[in-house]
């Protein structure tokens, strides 16, 4: 009897209650995180399929596989799905949802029901977006530029716009929940200066979600109004101003880029600290630079519009402010690197993804500086140079960080270890595949290949074939973790509470954690990342 009890799995959030109702009506932030994880994976696969079809078309210069109309729909739906339904919710809604209450030492987010509501809104938005796809697709580009989207496009713009509108509220509610949780739910002793850097970057992300997303909501509402009633708000033919749409759109959508990268930076700060066995170098600067990026992010939207006839002086200011974003970004990269200096660096899978992130984000960031330069920008506008730049940040940066974070906290989320060897191989394949896919696109863009076109000049073919071949390698790199993560759910080794020897409250509770996260409310007595002490004594 007693041996049987010892072997039985302890009660945790996964087995505390059972049945589909216990999942679909849960208010446990950890279960909601898992729901999000499943749903965003569906959208990631969908977006990936659209991308693969595009790369397949682009292996030959002629438009032979899809008509230009179909191709327009492919890149639009790739963008809409990946940005609004994968990248924006990716780390915040899964890892953020799972970890923030635990990292601050709380039993749940401040508003558990609103958290569940946000998932339902996400699903509702997703259903509208899917219905747009199933009915025949959208061809406006993910940016929904007017007056094409409001007047001329004969595709299913409305369901897509409604889907993005609804998903936006899901994002707002997540951000609101995080802000209140960080302000009001911290455990005794968890001062602002002791918050993990992941929480700081999620806090900065939440500020953008809360301040930016309502603006895209009202913009999309105006697009819908204009498309249905056609009163001329954005139609220059009857007195409207299409550029106004672009201003309003980018007022959100540029900060949204930082919604997509800041959480990744938070993950990297955690991972680099843990696998260097050191407190991240310049804690307060990493934390402050997250806030600086959030603030500066609201002041640079005009750099998407250098060629739309915006005033030259406005362009100069936007250009200079865009350069400024490089400062906090560089602070982070330098600090991560400095953290590794004289650290005890190990090469576990999350760290491999972190290495990938730092290198690829640096390339993406530096090419961002080139694009912020007015003259260069005019030269490469609407070319693959831009495509390569933001994929280096979004895929090379955010997706790498997302996978790194998923590996890092997988034992905590599921209570199981993934196979380390396979994981390292997958990380390496992803890195190689990514560079092969998007590296050539910098060259193509600089040579003048325009984006969003299904046919191109024959001299661009070799680099395009290279890029498509790289995409197939990248797909393998993503498929392997998908398989072994599923495998690990039943066959993986049982995870101890703290497999990495990491610091942070989430590692002090069981894996997987109990429903209320901690058996007793934790009391924090030491600063974040108190790694070094013992080992320094050891070495010195």
């Amino acid at each position, binding site marked *: 009897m007693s041996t049987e009890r010892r072997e039985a799995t302890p009660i945790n959030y996964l087995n505390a209650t059972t049945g589909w109702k216990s999942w679909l009506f849960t208010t446990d932030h950890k279960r909601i995180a898992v729901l999000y994880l499943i749903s965003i994976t569906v959208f990631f696969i969908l977006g990936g399929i659209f991308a693969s079809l595009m790369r397949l078309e682009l292996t030959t210069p002629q438009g032979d596989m899809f008509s230009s109309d179909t191709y327009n729909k492919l890149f639009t739906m790739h963008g809409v799905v990946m940005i609004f339904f994968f990248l924006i919710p990716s780390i915040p809604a899964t890892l953020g949802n799972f970890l923030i209450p635990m990292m601050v030492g*709380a*039993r*749940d*987010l*401040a*508003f*558990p029901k*609103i958290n569940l509501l946000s998932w339902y809104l996400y699903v509702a938005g997703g259903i509208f977006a899917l219905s747009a796809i199933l009915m025949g697709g959208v061809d406006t580009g993910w940016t929904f530029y007017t007056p094409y989207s409001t007047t001329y496009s004969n595709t299913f713009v409305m369901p897509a716009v409604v889907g993005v509108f609804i998903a936006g509220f899901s994002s*707002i509610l997540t951000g*609101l*929940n995080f*802000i*209140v949780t960080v*302000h*009001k*739910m911290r455990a005794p002793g968890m001062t602002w200066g002791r918050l993990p850097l992941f929480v700081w970057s999620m806090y900065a992300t939440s500020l953008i979600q*809360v*301040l*930016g*997303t*309502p*603006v895209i*909501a*009202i*913009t999309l*509402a*105006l697009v819908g*109004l204009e498309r249905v*009633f*056609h*009163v*001329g*708000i954005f139609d220059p033919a*009857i*007195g*409207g*101003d299409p550029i*106004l749409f672009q201003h*309003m759109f980018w*007022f959100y959508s540029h900060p949204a880029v930082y919604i997509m990268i800041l959480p990744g930076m938070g993950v990297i700060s955690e991972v680099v600290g843990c696998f260097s066995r050191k407190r991240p170098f310049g804690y307060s600067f990493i934390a402050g630079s997250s806030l600086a990026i959030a603030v500066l992010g609201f002041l640079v939207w005009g750099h998407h519009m250098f060629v739309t006839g915006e005033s030259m002086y406005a362009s100069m200011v936007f250009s200079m402010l865009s350069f400024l974003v490089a400062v906090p970004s560089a602070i982070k990269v330098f600090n991560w690197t400095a953290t590794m200096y004289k650290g005890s660096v190990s090469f576990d899978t999350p760290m491999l993804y972190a290495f990938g992130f730092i290198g690829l984000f640096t390339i993406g960031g530096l090419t961002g500086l080139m694009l912020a330069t007015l003259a260069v920008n005019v030269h490469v506008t609407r070319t693959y140079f831009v495509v390569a730049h933001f994929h280096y940040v979004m895929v090379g940066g955010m997706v790498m960080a997302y996978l790194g974070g998923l590996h890092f906290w997988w034992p905590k989320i599921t209570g199981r270890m993934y196979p380390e060897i396979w994981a390292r191989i997958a990380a390496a394949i992803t890195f190689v595949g990514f560079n092969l896919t998007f590296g050539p696109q910098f060259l193509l863009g600089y040579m003048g290949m325009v984006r969003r076109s299904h046919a191109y000049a024959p001299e661009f073919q070799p680099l395009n074939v290279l890029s498509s071949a790289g995409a197939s390698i990248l797909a393998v790199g993503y498929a392997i973790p998908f398989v072994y993560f599923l495998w690990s759910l039943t066959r993986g080794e049982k995870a101890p509470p703290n497999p990495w020897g990491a610091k942070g409250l989430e590692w002090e509770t069981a894996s997987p954690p109990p429903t*209320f996260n901690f*058996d*007793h*409310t934790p009391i924090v007595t030491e600063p974040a990342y108190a790694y070094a002490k013992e080992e320094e004594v050891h070495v010195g």
Partner: protein
Amino acid sequence: MADQAVPMEQHSPFLQHHFDDLDQQLDSSTLGMWVFLLTEIMFFGGMFGAYTIYRHMYPGAFASTSRYMEPVLGGINTAVLICSSLTMALAVRYAQLGNRKLIRIFLILTMIFGVAFIGVKFSEYYLHWKEHLVPWMGFQYPDHPEFFQQAQILFCFYFFMTGFHALHMFVGLGLLTWLLIKNERIAFGPAYYNPVEITGLYWHFVDIVWIFLFPLLYLIGANK
């Protein structure tokens, strides 16, 4: 054992399990509402911004549309809303004191003012409709045919902005109804008055939006 660390209030029926005490719960819900109102400011801010740009682009057309506004009805509505803010504030006060009867009275008064506002608003809409000034329903602008398209855009903004404001009034009335029912079922008092407090914040915010809409839409260039 965790119970020892947490005071008696753990057993308050109003305390949700994930909060330590009622103070933390009140602080959190109040901050949550403030953050939500921040998102609302950005939401209406987008509208005000777009409206301002068109007003700047088409000053002539704007001056011509001003003539069709109803500043008297708008003024009455402003007064109605300010009164409703007072009754709402009193409802919050009596919720803090735990006076069920006065809470009921002031909630009902607030709702009456709210309904009156919407009634006046829709009668204004009806007047505009009779004058063929609704953009997508046979819009006509015979006095200044040269401004036809621009005036249509400006009227579109008028209906869009006041319409979204009215939508918020409807949501507010829904919240007040919910409070009215809740007030009969549970005892609001010094220990627990969060729902009244945060609904009050919301209601005042919707009033303030109107305080900005009224001069922008009705008073500037009014020449009736």
